[in-house]
């Protein structure tokens, strides 16, 4: 009991003595945990929502049957309905339709429509049943009625009874909003109508997109899947809800994992701060601890004492962190819900779900980091030579054991090695490990480097300058580099993170910009809403467009989605005219391509995106099979092109080859080049005069570029948040280590005041120290950050998103942020010196513990 009381006394004393430092430490822990936790919450919220929304569409079925080419022939439906072991069957036609006329000003005016048979769906997906108005019971079967989810009604600004117009091919059809889907998932924009009416009105006659099955209770699902899969053959795949979830999770996995990794890096950065606060506190109390040891505290007890402190701090900080993280996530979701990763999770509105388990995980990480931060210096202290510890001047050696140059080089070297290894489960885990190792190595290397640099500087300074402030500052950095490096670890970690992010984002943005130039060479793009499996423009309309005056060139595109592997999201097939002599004129080819003359005679060339190489193992020259219509065709890969638009893969082929193979002469996009004499306005007017102009979606490539870049910026908004947080963490690190040092160095300041150093000189000295340190941290951080950005650009991005990019440096931004860091760090150091130079402190020369 006595021991516990002593524990408490010491803890209380510590709390009173270093209130500010403790607050800073708590904030640091809280920041790290909050950042990680909020990103995690947002991610899972978005994914859960997406998954739940998707699940509500497929209802409570056990097994779903899909066609590999998207839609499939409905004749399989009666077969499945009468298949042995099938209890309930629910045919679904799911497609997106283009909302026309007044809604056209929206960026995204596509509405997901599900055609269902209410009688079949009732038992499997009751959430999809529309609620018709009073006395309009038959609307669920009506061919002119559509039911909208609340989110869709709100989005379109419609109410029950209003008319809703759609572009279908070159026609416009009108449907009556017959009621709501009261049980649709919150925020989910969908519409439901009778399956027969949908097939007819939207030109999907004879087609279904999936059939959901509920099995008899005694049926083994796995065996059933295999058997049915074999019987249905190649064109179909049979999956369970679990498979669907994998597929959905796969769609956004890279995005989520990368964000989570960034959150961890942030937590990691925060942990340096915690570590430095703890380490400084231990250093400062070195003699106190030694005294306790002399008085008869055992090593265990002392260690326990220090760990308990860390534990208390970690607990408080991590709890705050969870609360702040939760708050931030809620705020972010509310503010950004419309935009949040909008092209990853379209048409849903996520809501935060608080999972105790995950909260506990983040709590443990925060606590663990803090306790670890306390453990390393604590171990050093308890094993220290007690006699020498009582002497002044030994503080700096405390850190020797923790940070050694050799281990730093090992870290850096193994980090570089890791970058050479392939991804793990298609994720750049090793890339991130390399980043962590570079950070650790960089920080461990810092004392040595600081000594080297500042010693050199000191020689120079003492030769040419008699400014006592500069001299003392430089001498301190040169001769007490360990303390300097503690202050710097936060700055270094956060600044390298900022640099890395900034370089990566800019490189990506410039690459996307250039890519857009390449993929949008025409002046105008005209699209038409799909009509069933047909592209919207038939021969007749194509001729009409071809004969328009004012255009120097017209290219037709046939774009469609297809499934190569049921576990993966669909890929995109683009058939278009491609320059046969120099395909690089048409496609943003990487270096990996070969001329068409090098292909064997009769081979059909196919150009694949980088993602196809990574995900499906396609290689130039290889023969591959691609399904089109109801057939599989053999192609030969002629080249690889860069694609930032479709991370799940895309292939391009000659439109003429496509038409020869499939006899599908419809197309759904047109690229138009203006004559030199024609203005944009004239071109638009010409297009408006087409008889079917009201269903055309005309986009100027300039607008398309702008909106693409806007989407890009929106998706990377999170990285800016991270950068700001990193700056704050870095500054907190400076503040924490300086204010901790202030107490440790109080006697030094007091002596200096005695020998005639003025208050303002001491403050200036501190500011200079902050500035020098930060400048050093910024330079080192820049080097480290550059290294990390190279990993992000050349390892992490290709491995997770399957695209490569070129390196571009955001010099302006880096200079700006360096300036901000320098000024604010100096200011922070200067501010933390305020208390130290007050009158009371001056007597510290006579103070002992």
């Amino acid at each position, binding site marked *: 009991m006595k021991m516990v009381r002593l524990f408490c006394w010491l803890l209380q004393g510590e709390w009173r003595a270093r209130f500010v430092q403790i607050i800073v430490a708590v904030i640091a822990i809280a920041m790290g945990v909050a950042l990680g936790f909020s990103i995690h919450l947002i991610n899972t919220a978005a994914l859960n929502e997406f998954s739940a929304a998707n699940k509500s569409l497929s209802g409570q079925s056990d097994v779903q049957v899909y066609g590999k080419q998207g839609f499939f022939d409905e004749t399989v439906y009666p077969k499945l309905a009468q298949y042995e072991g099938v209890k309930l069957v629910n045919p679904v036609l799911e497609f997106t339709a283009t909302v026309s006329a007044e809604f056209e000003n929206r960026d995204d005016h596509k509405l997901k429509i599900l055609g269902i048979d209410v009688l079949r769906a*009732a038992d499997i997906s009751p959430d999809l049943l529309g609620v018709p108005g009073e006395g309009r019971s038959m609307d669920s079967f009506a061919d002119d009625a559509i039911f909208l989810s609340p989110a869709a009604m709100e989005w379109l600004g419609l109410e029950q009874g209003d008319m809703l117009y759609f572009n279908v091919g070159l026609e416009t059809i009108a449907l009556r909003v017959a009621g709501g889907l009261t049980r649709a998932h919150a925020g989910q924009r969908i519409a439901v109508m009778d399956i027969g009416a949908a*097939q007819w009105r939207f030109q999907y006659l004879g087609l279904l997109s999936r059939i959901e099955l509920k099995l008899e209770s005694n049926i083994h699902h796995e065996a059933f899947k295999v058997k049915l899969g074999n019987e249905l053959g190649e064109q179909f795949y049979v999956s369970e809800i679990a498979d669907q979830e994998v597929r959905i999770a796969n769609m956004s996995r890279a995005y989520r994992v990368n964000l989570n990794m960034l959150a961890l890096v942030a937590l990691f950065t925060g942990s340096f701060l915690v570590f430095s606060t703890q380490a400084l506190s231990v250093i400062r109390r070195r003699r106190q601890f030694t005294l306790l040891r002399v008085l008869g505290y055992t090593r265990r007890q002392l260690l326990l004492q220090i760990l308990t402190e860390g534990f208390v701090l970690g607990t408080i900080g991590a709890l705050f962190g969870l609360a702040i993280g939760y708050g931030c996530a809620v705020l972010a979701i509310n503010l950004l819900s419309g935009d949040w990763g909008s092209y990853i999770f379209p048409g849903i509105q996520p809501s935060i779900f608080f999972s105790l388990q995950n909260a506990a995980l983040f709590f443990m990480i925060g606590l663990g980091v803090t306790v670890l931060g306390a453990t390393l210096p604590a171990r050093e202290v308890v094993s220290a030579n007690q006699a020498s510890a009582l002497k002044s001047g030994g503080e700096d050696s405390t850190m020797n054991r923790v940070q050694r140059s050799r281990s730093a080089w090992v870290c850096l070297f193994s980090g570089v090695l890791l970058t050479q290894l392939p991804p793990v489960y298609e994720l750049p885990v090793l890339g991130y490990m390399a980043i962590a190792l570079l950070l650790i190595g960089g920080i461990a290397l810092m004392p040595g480097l600081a000594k080297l640099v500042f010693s050199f500087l000191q020689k120079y300074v003492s030769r040419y300058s008699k400014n006592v402030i500069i001299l003392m500052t430089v001498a301190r950095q040169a001769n007490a580099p360990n303390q300097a490096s503690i202050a710097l670890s936060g700055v270094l970690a956060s600044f390298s993170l900022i640099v890395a992010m900034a370089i990566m984002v800019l490189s990506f943005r410039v690459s996307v910009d250039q890519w857009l130039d390449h993929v949008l060479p025409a002046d105008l793009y005209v699209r038409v809403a799909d009509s069933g499996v047909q592209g919207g423009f038939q021969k007749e309309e194509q001729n009409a467009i071809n004969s328009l005056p004012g255009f120097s060139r017209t290219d037709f595109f046939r774009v469609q989605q297809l499934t190569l592997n049921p576990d993966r999201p669909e890929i995109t097939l683009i058939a278009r005219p491609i320059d046969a002599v120099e395909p690089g004129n048409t496609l943003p080819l990487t270096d990996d391509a070969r001329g068409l003359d090098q292909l064997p005679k009769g081979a059909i060339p196919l150009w694949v995106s980088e993602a196809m190489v990574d995900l499906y193992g396609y290689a130039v020259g290889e023969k591959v099979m691609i399904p089109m219509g109801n057939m599989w065709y053999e192609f030969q890969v002629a080249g690889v092109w860069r694609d930032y638009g479709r991370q799940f893969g895309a292939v391009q082929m000659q439109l003429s080859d496509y038409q020869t193979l499939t006899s599908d002469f419809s197309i759904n996009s047109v690229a138009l080049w203006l004559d030199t004499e024609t203005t944009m306005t004239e071109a638009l007017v010409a297009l408006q005069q087409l008889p079917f102009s009201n269903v055309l979606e005309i986009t100027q490539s300039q607008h398309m570029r702008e909106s693409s870049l806007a989407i890009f910026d929106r998706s990377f908004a999170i990285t800016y948040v991270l950068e700001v947080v990193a700056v704050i963490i870095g500054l907190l690190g400076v503040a924490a280590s300086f204010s901790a040092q202030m107490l440790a160095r109080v006697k030094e300041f007091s002596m200096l005041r005695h020998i005639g150093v003025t208050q303002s000189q001491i403050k200036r000295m501190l500011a200079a120290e902050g500035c020098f340190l930060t400048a050093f941290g910024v330079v080192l951080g820049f080097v480290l950050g550059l290294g990390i950005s190279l990993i992000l650009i050349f390892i992490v991005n290709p491995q997770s998103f399957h695209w490569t990019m070129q390196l571009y440096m955001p010099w302006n931004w880096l200079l700006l942020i360096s300036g901000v860091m320098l000024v604010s760090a100096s200011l922070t150091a200067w501010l933390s010196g305020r208390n130290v130079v007050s009158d009371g402190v001056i007597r510290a020369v006579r103070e002992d513990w």
Partner: protein
Amino acid sequence: MIPLFFNQNGVSWLFLLIILWPSISVSQEAVQGNRFAKVSTGYTLVFPRDYGAHPDFRIEWWYVTGWLETDDKKTLGFQVTFFRSSTGHHPENPSQFAPKQLIIAHAALSDPSVGRLIYGEKSARTGFDLAYAKEGDTNVKLDDWYFVRDADGHYQTKINAEKFGMQLSLIPTQKMILQGEHGFSRKGPNVEQASYYYSEPHLKVAGTIKHQGKTLAVNGHAWLDHEWSSELLDSRADGWDWVSMNLFDGSSLMAFQIRGKDGAKLWAYAKFRNAAGEVRFFDPEQIEFIPERVWQSPHTNAVYPVEMRIRTGEIEWRLIPFFDDQELDSRRTTGAVYWEGAVRIFKEHQPAGQGYLELTGYESALDL
């Protein structure tokens, strides 16, 4: 006599589909009525054609009720109903999924040892040969449920509900009865409210029943109604009481009354045929349904006159329910609540036969 309508409680989807349901919207009927064929007096029913479906009419059903006995002398009541309903779909819609017709089936089993009605239901649109009601002869199918008339006039039916199953053959032992005037059956004071209607009484039943995990061989007798119409009920109607009787002496009686909103008789009909085939009609004013004992459903709080005296001319029939709780409550799925139960028939205190009584429009106080 099957108006359809939708449950409006916002939860559900399916039709409420009950015999003689009162509240069909007049306006909707007016809108859709002209698309459908009309029931008129001059028509002569032609067989076997009229055994089959009549898709031009809005609604149609084949309705079998009867009594069964298992090998171990246990008595059961049963009901098998197949409805066909036209949706008034757009005739130009070429989709195989176009909802041209809907097929709905209800089946129920009355087992006094269970103490309440066991029932199942199913519905689907026609198409893909998964569900249909064929023309030419009775042939109705809904997935694995069916009701078919063979060339020899025997009916075969199979029901495979969640809680029970039936596979029965029904063999006619008597000639059919054309109800009303040669099959034209009025349902109210207005001559437009009518149906084509014939019955086959005294069908001999044999087959098996899957019940409580066992497959039981059963024998018994049944009554078949086949009725089709486009417009059934007077807007003043509130519900109806209907009874069919297979009497031990080989005679049979079908009677119904349409009740007005005030509870009074709006229309009534009864036709009696003795074993020799002599037929007797009763005018509406000769027919009286007199409640003897009411039973309040513990499930819905509805109060049904489960015990009745029915007066047809000078004859008085006494109806005693097989057991009280034969209420069919499908509010959670179809929204319909009615009483459809096996009854014993007494005449002058002597057992006279077995029949089925149907009581609709009694469910009330739902809002509570």
